């Protein structure tokens, strides 16, 4: 073993390991590590790779179901969709890099999640992005929005995978730590699933894709620490994306996967060659020998430490069947990609590293993977929680309801996101049946009638007030969004964005949120098949709002029967599926709402969610859309029923008004904008009235007729009447207000 100068405590701290963790490293090796080995332990035991703070909690999530082919733990989850086909999907965070360098940070986030999906053998067919930015008035916000959107678009557009939807929200709690969560779904044959496993001693290990450079060294460790005044200095730990190389890598991998030459394959994502080799060996119960001199590098004199820890993008590690190396080489050479035989699978259970004819590192696989530290960190509710949950909506200053509606439509979290999705190619691959702008996207699966409903979301403010209830809302809302396009949820992926888990309040949020996800997934019978945890989202000790983001995939048997989100035809009936207000006389729930945020600080409790009611509403909506009985279906979320009705008037290409009457309890400037769940605004041909009512009743979902589509105004009897041109201007202008402002870096 190559020996160097002894490791001092400053070096250990710089690698993000605690003294106790360092003792465990020594125990695992039976000696002191050298610097290379220390680096490998540090990234494998980072929060990002090891899930050391969250792993115990995640065990409680429902991850199985009749359609689940691959659950959490692989590069992506896989769920069956019929006809011998399946979908692979996952969502992953790239928060820290995107805050430091928004364009490249977001771009490489997209690149990473795409690789996770095509590694499984799936052709990526659509992406979503869930984004959180700071207050719209914060000087850095426009810079981050511009950069992140350019990065996502630049990567997705070039590689030719449509970005079909997502969610963008703003809150000052994200001023110092934006969120970029990227989701991709791909389609594969269910009998052609590839896994990240190294097996079969003697099988060759091949490195393919781009060359290794010095970029992104220790990115995983960076993503496992808080930000402070030195954050700007971390720019060199952000990688640079190259969608062109990734496009070649995608095509080459899918071409190779037509054969049976591959034993296992894994993306070199966070922690690069280290995590791909160690995780593959771990899953396969094998060992690996790597000759680091053979790794294609793009810079001179790279050390083994740099080669193992680089996070250069667009690289993959393949274990091939012995004797099939030439096939792999032929295909990758055709696509002008690097391919190098860098090692072989062994039965030692160790990672053995050679460089310049010397053995430079030798580490047992077990302690790096399953044997990584596992923490049951102390947790308790914040001491001021009860105080913060007290809120009387009547304390909000009263304003005319029309004024409140226009102000809400203009708020960037609610306003049209057209500025964003116009920069994304959402039509490539000819799948876009329901395109961006509505509640959920609907993407046709090539070669048939089957479609995939896709939606991502989370109400971070609800989660701050009550993380368990907030997480339940997140699952309910994305599944409700699917219902509006007639899709039945078949699987979910989560991306848990939280602050520093070493603080008991944050750990409590994480625990509560995971419990909430579990509650809702069990009630709605949808498994979580993949996910990602992003902790330490804090700057100068201030945590983000807890954001257990979820993305749902749903199935539609015939894409041709769909509904849009907006009103389409004068004379149609406007109705509400679900109850307008939980309490017909009491005060409305406004905790965590945009209406509250417009007027003052975040307080109170999120509106309660009745999962049985939620399920009834969703099932009724799916049945109505599939039967072609409704012309439009739009979920009530941020801004409540008032905003949902206004959006139904202005979201479509042809704006159209509506006249409705509502049993408004109390002050309309509050009730209209409460964000209670389990409500969907429908419109349908009056001739279908009876059938619609029957379907709703069959599913036990309340249905209330509100009025009719038509005219040039949105009129709510006795409450407000606003020209749709005014609603439209507010809704379309709100986001432009953010990006048109001068920016500061």
């Amino acid at each position, binding site marked *: 073993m190559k020996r160097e100068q002894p490791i001092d405590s400053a070096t250990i701290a710089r690698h993000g390991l605690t003294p106790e963790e360092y003792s465990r490293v020594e125990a695992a090796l039976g000696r002191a590590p050298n610097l290379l080995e220390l680096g490998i332990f540090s990234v494998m035991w980072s929060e990002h790779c090891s899930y050391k703070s969250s792993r115990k909690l995640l065990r409680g999530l429902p991850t199985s179901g009749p359609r689940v082919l691959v659950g959490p733990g692989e590069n992506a989850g896989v769920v069956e969709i019929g006809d011998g086909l399946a979908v692979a999907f996952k969502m992953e965070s790239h928060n820290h890099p995107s805050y430091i360098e928004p364009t490249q940070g977001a771009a490489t986030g997209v690149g990473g999640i795409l690789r996770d999906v095509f590694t499984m053998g799936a052709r990526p067919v659509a992406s979503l992005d869930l984004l959180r930015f700071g207050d719209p008035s914060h000087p850095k916000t426009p810079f981050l929005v511009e950069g992140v959107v350019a990065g996502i678009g630049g990567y997705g*557009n070039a590689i030719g995978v449509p970005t079909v939807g997502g969610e963008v929200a703003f809150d000052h709690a994200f001023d110092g730590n934006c969120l970029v969560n990227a989701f991709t779904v791909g389609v594969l044959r269910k009998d052609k699933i590839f896994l990240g496993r190294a097996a079969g001693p003697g099988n060759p290990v091949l490195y393919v894709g781009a060359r290794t450079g010095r970029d992104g060294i220790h990115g995983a460790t960076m993503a496992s620490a808080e930000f402070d005044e030195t954050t700007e200095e971390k720019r060199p730990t952000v990688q640079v994306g190259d969608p*062109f190389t990734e496009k070649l890598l995608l095509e080459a991998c899918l071409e190779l996967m037509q054969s049976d030459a591959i034993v296992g394959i894994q993306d070199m994502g966070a922690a690069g060659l280290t995590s791909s080799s160690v995780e593959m060996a771990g899953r396969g119960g094998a060992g690996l020998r790597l000759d680091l001199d053979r790794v294609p590098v793009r810079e001179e004199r790279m050390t083994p430490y740099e080669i193992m820890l680089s996070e250069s993008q667009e690289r993959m590690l393949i274990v091939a069947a012995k004797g099939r190396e030439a096939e792999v080489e032929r295909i990758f050479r055709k696509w002008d990609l690097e391919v190098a035989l860098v090692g072989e699978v062994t039965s030692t259970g160790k990672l053995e590293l050679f460089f310049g004819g010397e053995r430079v590192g030798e580490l047992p696989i077990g302690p790096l993977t399953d044997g990584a530290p596992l923490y049951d960190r102390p947790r308790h509710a914040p001491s001021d929680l009860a105080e913060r949950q007290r809120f009387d909506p009547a304390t909000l200053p009263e304003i005319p309801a029309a004024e409140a509606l226009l102000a809400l439509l203009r708020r960037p979290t609610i306003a049209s996101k057209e500025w964003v999705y116009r920069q994304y*190619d959402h039509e*490539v691959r*000819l799948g*876009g*049946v329901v395109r961006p702008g509505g509640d959920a996207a609907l993407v046709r699966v090539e070669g048939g009638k089957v479609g995939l409903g896709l939606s991502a979301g989370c109400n971070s403010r609800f989660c701050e007030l009550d993380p368990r209830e907030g997480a339940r809302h997140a699952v309910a809302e994305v599944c409700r969004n699917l219902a509006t396009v007639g899709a039945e949820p078949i699987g979910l992926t989560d991306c848990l964005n939280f602050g520093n888990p070493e603080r008991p309040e944050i750990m409590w949020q994480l625990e509560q949120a995971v419990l909430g996800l579990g509650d809702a997934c069990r009630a709605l019978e949808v498994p979580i098949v993949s996910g990602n945890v992003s902790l330490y989202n804090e700057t100068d000790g201030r945590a983000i709002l807890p954001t257990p983001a979820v993305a749902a995939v749903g199935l539609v048997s015939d894409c041709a029967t769909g509904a849009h989100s907006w009103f389409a035809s004068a004379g149609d009936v406007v109705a509400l599926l679900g109850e307008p207000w939980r309490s017909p006389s009491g005060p409305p729930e406004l905790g965590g709402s945009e209406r509250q945020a417009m007027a003052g600080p975040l307080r109170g409790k999120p509106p309660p969610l009745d999962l049985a009611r939620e399920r009834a509403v969703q099932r009724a909506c799916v049945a109505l859309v599939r039967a072609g009985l409704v012309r439009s279906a739009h979920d009530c979320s941020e801004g409540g029923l008032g905003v949902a009705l206004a959006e139904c008037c202005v979201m479509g290409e042809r704006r159209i008004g509506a006249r409705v009457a509502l049993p408004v309890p109390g002050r309309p400037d509050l009730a209209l904008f409460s964000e209670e769940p389990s409500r969907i605004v429908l419109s349908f041909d009056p001739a279908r009235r009876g059938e619609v009512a029957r379907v709703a009743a069959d599913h036990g979902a309340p249905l209330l007729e509100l009025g009719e589509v038509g005219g040039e105004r949105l009129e709510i009897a006795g409450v407000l009447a606003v020209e749709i041109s005014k609603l439209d201007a507010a809704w379309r202008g709100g986001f432009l207000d953010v990006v048109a402002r001068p920016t500061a870096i």
Partner: protein
Amino acid sequence: MKVGVVVFPGSNCDHDAAHALELLGHEPLLLWHKETSLQGVERILLPGGFSYGDYLRAGALARFSPIMAEVGRFADRGGPVLGICNGFQILCEAGMLPGVLARNASLRFVCKHVHVRVEAGESLLTRGLRPGTVLRLPIAHADGNYTLDDAGLDALERSGQILFRYCDEEGQLSAGANPNGAMRAIAGVRSERGNVVGLMPHPERACEGLLGATDGRALLESFLS
């Protein structure tokens, strides 16, 4: 009809083009850019995408791909060639069509449905379409700003080489209806001889009602007739 769809490294609308050709009852043949045989195809289509990443200038590297010499000879013999989006950019860079596609005036990628007005009927792409007809077609590009010197533009006008201009729903030209700042609102042109055509909009994305646009069919049917 056997139609060659050239696959450059970074092409990403090749499968979509093949899908549309099949839908219209034709036989697409994917031709890898390193090949030098056109395998007897009767039409050639250069699809959209980001050939070579478009890191230099859109289409500037793809014109040097081995197959492009064959495509040039095919065109010289009068063979019909269609370039869509990146394919249009490549044909311009290769000198097979006049002009060049510069960065959009907004400096941003733009993906939306636009209206274009047929300027010249009876071209390879517009057989059976009367001048003045307004079509609705999808665009998705960062470099669609058609650029040429004034004399060149005048010459195109005189010889009827301008096939499509961006317009509003009523067929009127306006700055608001021009999505990329293209000179004289040009969305598509033909070569002097007429057998090479290129356009920024994606007709292959507009062949099925399910996907929200069907006006691309007429253009592809014209090209394949």
